[in-house]
């Protein structure tokens, strides 16, 4: 396992991106919330509506709020044109801004409502105009309370910004998500430490400004502001030192195989002289649309996923026919080039512990009929909504006693600990062999195929250099090689590899 202290210094660019994103969101939230609070101070209706809306936003989980901006921006493309980014900085900024509104707005409104009425009457009495009253009296007297709201907003925003990783915006969430998927706890801890440290630093700096405002100490107020400004400038500078050329962006969904393949693809492109960038930990639904609109350039997708989710098909025409239909459909509908299949499948399969399967006398899905009501089935978070599950359930008449959702990484642990009796495993998963699991046969052919295929965005679909660099990958990766690489990343002992190391091993095994 890598040492946390060796990982932390390498997080500089993630930290810079995190600072820029959080600061922009808080700045924008202030630009919206402060004038709104002034308006709310003059109208009870505005105050009620604004505070209710801001509170409503808080009830949406941050992860969902971030994800919601993707379809929203996609639909706005009909108004603003195809240039509107749907992933990355813009949606992350919008979601985090909404999230930061409430504490700023609430504190500003409360501060105004609690101003001494005598002082306000005096302001009118000495002949201040509305504007003078706002600038000379209301703003300075409310400032410490507003600053307290900005502090709360900053801590929330810095925490929630780690989730921006899932919509393709680099942040300190990158090491956290990558670590969670590959069970690299040092990476998770490093990301958490960095973001917690950033939140604490911001909170303390803003506290200095707040106290400075309350005690009318210019030294503290402006000193604090200067340090904040310097931090943001340093982050901006750190971000801008990267090359301006558009790099080739490689997407990875949230599991180990995707991280390994992304590294494999990236290293081949780098060897061919391309600059590459990784967008790790993207939601599965995000990846497909992101490739179609060239927000990312290369991804590994699976025939069964595209078949069910985007073609909305529930029939099963067989492995070859399914691939050909998808290849033609992607080219026709999205301009996406399906370069080819990598050679292995990552299909759904039902797996049991060998001892448990033996005790129950189960070797195929058909054998579960009648025994299922006493058993618990575990699946990844989307599994029980998927047509594969419905197809299997109906084909074999399965009625499980209980069904539980697990993150893919933890599903195998649940099987070992007996929290689940049967799980929806993946055929390329190294732990099937490592844990000596029994994969149940599918005599009815209810489970569709999941061929891994390389998809390219319209932007690079005809880039000869890219095509040449990636062509050797087609058909080169066997399911055994993939399982081995996956297991090397997922295992917990001394043999654990990073996705990058596993990708190098995989390349060697595939003869590349």
């Amino acid at each position, binding site marked *: 396992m890598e040492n946390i202290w060796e990982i932390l210094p390498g997080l500089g660019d993630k930290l810079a991106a995190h600072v820029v994103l959080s600061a922009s969101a808080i700045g924008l939230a202030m630009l919206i919330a402060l004038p709104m609070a002034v308006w709310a101070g003059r109208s009870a209706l505005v105050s009620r509506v604004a505070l209710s809306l801001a509170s409503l936003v808080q009830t949406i989980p941050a992860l969902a709020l971030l994800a919601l901006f993707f379809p929203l921006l996609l639909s706005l493309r009909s108004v603003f044109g195809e240039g509107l980014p749907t992933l990355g900085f813009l949606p992350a900024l919008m979601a985090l801004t909404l999230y930061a509104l409430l504490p700023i707005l609430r504190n500003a409104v409360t501060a105004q409502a609690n101003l*001494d009425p005598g002082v306000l*009457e*005096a*302001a009118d009495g*000495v*002949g201040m*105009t509305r504007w003078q009253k706002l600038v*000379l009296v209301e703003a300075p007297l409310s400032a410490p309370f507003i600053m307290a709201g900005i502090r709360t907003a900053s801590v929330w925003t810095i925490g929630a910004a780690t989730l921006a990783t899932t919509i393709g915006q680099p942040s300190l969430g990158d090491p956290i998500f990558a670590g969670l998927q590959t069970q690299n706890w040092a990476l998770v801890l490093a990301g958490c430490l960095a973001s917690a440290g950033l939140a604490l630093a911001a909170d303390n700096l803003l506290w200095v400004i707040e106290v400075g405002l309350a005690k009318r100490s210019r030294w503290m107020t402006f000193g604090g502001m200067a340090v904040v400004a310097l931090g943001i400038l340093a982050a901006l500078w750190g971000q801008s030192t990267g090359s301006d050329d558009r790099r080739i962006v490689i997407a990875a969904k949230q599991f180990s195989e995707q991280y390994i393949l992304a590294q494999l693809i990236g290293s081949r492109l780098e060897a061919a002289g391309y600059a590459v960038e990784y967008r790790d930990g993207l939601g599965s639904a995000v990846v497909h649309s992101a490739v179609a609109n060239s927000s990312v350039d290369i991804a590994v997708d699976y025939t069964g996923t595209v078949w069910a989710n985007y073609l909305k098909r529930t029939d099963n025409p067989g492995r070859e026919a399914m691939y050909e239909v998808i290849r033609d459909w992607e080219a026709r509908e999205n301009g996406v080039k399906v370069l080819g299949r990598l050679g292995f499948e990552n299909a759904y399969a039902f797996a049991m512990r060998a001892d448990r399967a033996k005790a129950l006398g189960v070797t195929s899905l058909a054998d579960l009929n009648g025994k299922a009501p006493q058993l618990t089935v575990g699946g990844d978070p989307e599994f029980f909504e998927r047509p594969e599950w419905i197809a299997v359930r109906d084909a074999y008449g399965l009625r499980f006693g209980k069904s539980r959702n697990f993150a893919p990484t933890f599903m195998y642990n649940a099987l070992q600990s007996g929290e689940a009796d049967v799980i929806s495993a993946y055929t390329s998963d190294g732990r099937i062999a490592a844990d000596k699991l029994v994969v149940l046969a599918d005599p009815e052919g209810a489970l569709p195929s999941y061929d891994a295929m390389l998809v390219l965005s319209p932007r690079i679909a005809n880039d000869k250099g890219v095509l040449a660099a990636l062509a050797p990958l087609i058909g080169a990766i066997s399911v055994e090689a993939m399982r081995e690489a996956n297991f090397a990343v997922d295992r917990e002992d001394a043999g654990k590899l990073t996705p990058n190391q596993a990708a190098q091993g995989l390349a060697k095994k595939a003869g590349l």
Partner: protein
Amino acid sequence: METPAPLLRFDGVICRFGEVTAVSGVSCDIASGSFVALVGASGSGKSTLLKTVNTLVDPSEGRVVFGGEDVSTLPPARLRRRVGYVFQGIGLFPHFSVAENIAIGPRLAGEKLPPERIAELLALVELDPAFARRMPDELSGGQRQRVGVARALAGGPELLIMDEPFGALDPVTRDALGRKVRELHERLGLTTVMVTHDMAEALLLADRVLVMDRGALVADENPRALLAGAGGTVAQRLASVPRDQAERLAAMEERA
């Protein structure tokens, strides 16, 4: 003898707030140089009437004329620099020093008061010039209201309006500050209108007492006449309190 033109005129002033009528038609002239007390029970409309002068309240009907001009036609900021305002809440700006508080009116007009002028204003209300640098939360209640009076005088107003100015002060401070204001009124040649619910204060400080009851002006007398029984029932009910107290105190002294 020629009557001087009134500095202030209420002309059929009516103030309604929804269903409530706070002032129900008040007409009266206030001569330049006079010290007028506006007396009445709580809710009689006296404060509302006073606030129509510096347009903190706009009349629903009627008009207020100040120096020959309808106040509703004057820009509020300019009007309020000519009308010093002292009120029970005092309302010193807590983030300004005493000097900054006093200088705020002229500052809004684009004029910077020199330190000598601040010291002079502090001296008028019997405060040491060293107070200039203090913050309001370092002052006692009486000192704060003295600063409030100095702030009202800073712009060199023609008219001083005061709304229960000494209401929150202890009796000794209250008496001293009342005498001080009367003295300043004489010395600076001010015209002063003071709202109070305390008839004794009105009788001792003012040279004309207006009594309000349920939004209407019910009496307009000088203090001597009020003490002698003029002004009608409402005025006499208010005037009888200090008169009886004075008589009882005098009787006590005689017995002793």
